[in-house]
């Protein structure tokens, strides 16, 4: 049995996520097989790229159903970057498309809110995260520590209570992570954010160890 199933829907840097799991002592597998996923103690939905393409890949492999079943087990689910956005109801990207819909809210283009220059929409670099909640996977990180972001869209949850950290682009605030029931998502890349980011993987390890029923 694996600690972490890293969901492979052919988008994103799976290698780094699996390296970060190794580093934290988490036994992980990169997979899209339903039985392997459901047997795992937790899952990570990674992702870089286009929302629409990602949803198509997920549906083609029937991973949307698997993710829903896993969600109902109450075991930890982690979403990273595009993997975070996919849990929302819909995204603006390329004329709009529906997401997994487990979290109420939508995914919006950066350019609408943050940038005054034409067409510029990619936020790339290190931004501080400001905690809005405690008792989640961020708990071992320092408040206002810097994490690595690379994204052109961001999530706007309907219920602000689920926001676990906020960050800023050009002094405008956006939601950089959420914690909702057994789902925890990060707009930044913990596996690319040096030692501070790796603490999130260690926290996941602790969480799994403290709940043997997983």
């Amino acid at each position, binding site marked *: 049995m694996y600690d972490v199933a890293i969901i492979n829907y052919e988008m994103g*840097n*799976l*290698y*780094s996520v699996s*390296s*970060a799991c*190794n*580093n934290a002592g988490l036994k992980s597998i990169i997979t899209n097989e339903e039985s392997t996923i459901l047997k795992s103690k937790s899952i990570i939905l990674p992702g*870089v*790229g*286009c929302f629409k393409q990602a949803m198509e890949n997920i549906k083609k492999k029937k991973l949307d159903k698997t993710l829903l079943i896993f969600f109902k087990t109450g075991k930890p689910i982690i979403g990273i970057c595009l993997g975070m956005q996919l849990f929302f109801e819909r995204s603006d990207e390329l004329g709009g498309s529906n997401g997994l819909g487990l979290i109420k809210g939508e995914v919006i283009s950066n350019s609408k809110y943050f940038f005054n*220059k*034409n*067409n*510029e929409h*990619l936020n*790339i*670099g*290190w*931004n*501080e995260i400001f905690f809005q909640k405690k008792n989640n996977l961020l708990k071992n990180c320092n408040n206002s520590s*810097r994490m*690595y972001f*690379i*994204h*052109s869209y961001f999530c706007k949850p309907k219920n602000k209570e689920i926001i676990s950290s906020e*960050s*800023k682009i*050009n002094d405008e605030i956006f939601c950089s992570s959420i914690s909702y029931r057994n789902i925890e998502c990060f707009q930044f*890349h913990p*596996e*690319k*954010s*040096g*030692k501070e*980011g*790796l603490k999130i993987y260690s926290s996941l390890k602790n969480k799994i160890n403290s709940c043997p029923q997983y």
Partner: protein
Amino acid sequence: MIKNLRIIPKIDVKNFNLVKGIHLEGLRVLGDPKVFIKYYYDSGADEIIYHDVVASLYGKNQLKELVSRTANDIFLPLTVGGGISSIESIKAMLSSGADRVFANTAFIKNPKLINETVKYFGSSTIVASIETISKDGEYYCSMDFGREETQIKLDEWLMEVQDRGIGEIVITSIDQDGTGKGFDLKLAEKISKKIYIPYIINGGFGKLNHFDEVLNCCDPSGIAIGSILHYGLKNENLVLDQEEGNKDFILKNKKYLNFGEISIKKIKDHLKNKALIRET
């Protein structure tokens, strides 16, 4: 004031050695890239650029192996290039642990490849590298790590890669590369006026005040640095691939006086004190 400027060590590799030249020529072997990268990771680098500098010349690439070895224990964004020529070669690099991929020669030879790769991987994954040299007051683009000059004017090429949807550009000044005399300020101004997408500048940084100069006339998203970091470290890294390369410099333990020993932390502290950058 620039927000979130990334300080990015640029690791040029030939076979399995880290190399560094002047004006992209006369590549000296400086050591095992892994030792350098580990040090930069521990001392606060924001990203690593990995460049196989002979890949497009020889049509081969050892980079995949180096990248996956690096991605095992370096948890930073890795931007990788050299010999990238197709969707397939990008897939191979990404599955080895690269986060983003850059190309120069292949994009100049076939500009449509920019649109195709951006469409496939998203603009955030595709970076254009531009190696530019000045002649009679005009800047031109080069291919094959500066070995082949073209008649393509920098102004036109900047607009073209931007219009084709590239996510970010790395601009290397061949005139300044490896000299330690500072970045080309005229070039910096030109770029900042010409494009709105994020860009990284590379070439010439040797002293702390070179950073001040350049940040006063342009607003890059990142600064790539090589010699200024590598030369302070080289002597600890005598683990060499014995196959080939100019090892004279490192084996005779020569010093390179154009560069002070400057760490990433020193650069960042300096820029923050001068209020040239701020975080978030």
